């Protein structure tokens, strides 16, 4: 078993855990945690399946992951701001309640 194999398998399991959490979790912040877990798994997959060059892991994959990390944190920060406002307005931390139909 090589290093890459271990990380590929772990990453796909983590991705699955993230999908599961995103669907099943109730609290919006836990859904965001699940999304972040998923994105980490995607990044690890991206680097490991891209293989290595003589000078370390594939530089393109590394660059893509760096870009992805920044995008993920930006999206998370915005989602948290939205979440905080939503809780302030409605007092609810989940989307399960019946959609209010106010104009």
């Amino acid at each position, binding site marked *: 078993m090589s290093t890459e194999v271990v990380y590929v398998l772990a990453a796909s399991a983590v991705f699955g855990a993230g999908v599961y959490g995103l669907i099943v979790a109730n609290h919006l912040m836990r859904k965001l945690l699940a*999304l972040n877990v*998923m994105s980490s798994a995607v990044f690890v*997959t991206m680097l490991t399946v*891209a293989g290595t060059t003589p000078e370390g892991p594939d530089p393109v994959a590394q660059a*893509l992951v760096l870009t992805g990390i920044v995008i993920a944190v930006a999206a998370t920060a915005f*989602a948290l701001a*939205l979440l905080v406002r939503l809780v302030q307005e409605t007092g609810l931390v989940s989307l399960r309640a019946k959609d209010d*139909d106010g*104009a």
Partner: protein
Amino acid sequence: MAPDALAVLVFAPLVAALAVIVAPPRATTALALAGIALTAPALWVVTAAVLGGEVVEVALAGAAPPLGIAWRADGFSLTMAWLTFVVVAFVSLHALASFPSTSDAGRRFWPMWLILVASVYALFLSADLFNLYVTLELVTLTAVAMIAIGGAPAAMRAAMRYLLLGLMASLFYLLATALLYGQTGTLDLYQVGERLGEGALATTALALMITGLLVKSAIVPLHVWLPAAHGKAPGPVSAVLSALVVKVTLYILIRLWFWAGGALDDGLAAFVLGLLGAVAIVYGSIAAIVQTRLKMLVAYSTVAQLGYVMLLFPLASTAAFRAVTFHVLAHGVAKAAMFLAAANLLAALGSDRLQRLVGADQRYPVNVLAFALAGVSIMGLPPSGGFVAKWMLLEAAWQSQGWGWVAVISAGSLLAAVYVFRVVALAYAQPRPASSVRRPGTTPRGRFGATSVAALALAVLAIVLGIASAPVLSLIDLGLPPGMAP
């Protein structure tokens, strides 16, 4: 010349956005309009080049794929870019009145609006899987933020749901991109198409990617986020969400399928996608019929109309491609008009409950007319753009003897007629004396202001598209997928 024009499409709105953020609010209108207007000549230049038979291509930073990213404009992407320009131009006209640049909401609206425009152009030009991911995230985040602009709890809940599903979909797409890069060593869509053989990996990656894109395109049963998001957003935002934002992912899907998806080119997957489309048409239309609020009705109509695009996959012929591309155009223009008209009526009446529309034509004739004209196109009645699109789609289905698809297309038009006529009939109904008294608190705004003009102009355009379809179709013909002859 033409390659530089591609850069103008993306950079002009982007520079305008930055300038709007930094400059004082009184300069916003001029900067924003300049940023959007500059893309028109650029589009002309590119169109001229494409009509001359060339595919305009530019390797950014001089690094050709697989090393770098290339922009590529053919008839297909150009058609979408023109749709973007037309919708954005008229909706901006509406937004000038509904989001005045000196108001709080206006100051938040305009920078995001311009960034959205730039990112949609960038998306239609890009042929790089990862770059498409970045632009998709940009489009999604901007769209979500703009839905929440009004600050109503319902809108923010809708925004949150859209955001969560959108981010999940992006990650599915990104995971597939990772797998495809590992397998092919390139991110360029066309090179991936060449290098990707058949096999378990190709199937898995493409399936993941398509799932992600279907979520973002709100194809039934992954549509749950759309009605609230489009229904609760401010008028101009709803218009551009329905006309453009859900189309960008369908654009990627079509590109992927017909330009790079050799591995999935079997009947079953195509049939499943077509079936989803058929379900979307029927379900969306029926859901629209039972709505009690105008904007929600229009939003469910979008769910239904998106279904037609999916019929392209099982039909997979030149005729179907032309029909579907034309449908995307016609629907985009008509639906933008419809949402703007609905937003104007909502602002004027104070509520968009359907019962309140009784007699609206007497007080708001322009907006009701705009809604009705756009409805003609949505239903597919001649001589509208919607009619041309649906007629061509029927022909395509007929030619390939897909009787089931023929039935769905016809049923969709009939159902659309029901929900459109329901609104129009109410609006033109003779009000009973009691209800003709203006309720206190309703404003006479929108009688014939810029907002109404924008809605009416788009609606007229939706009709004109049907009369003058020939030049548009000749542009579409220059962007046919490989293997399809005009």
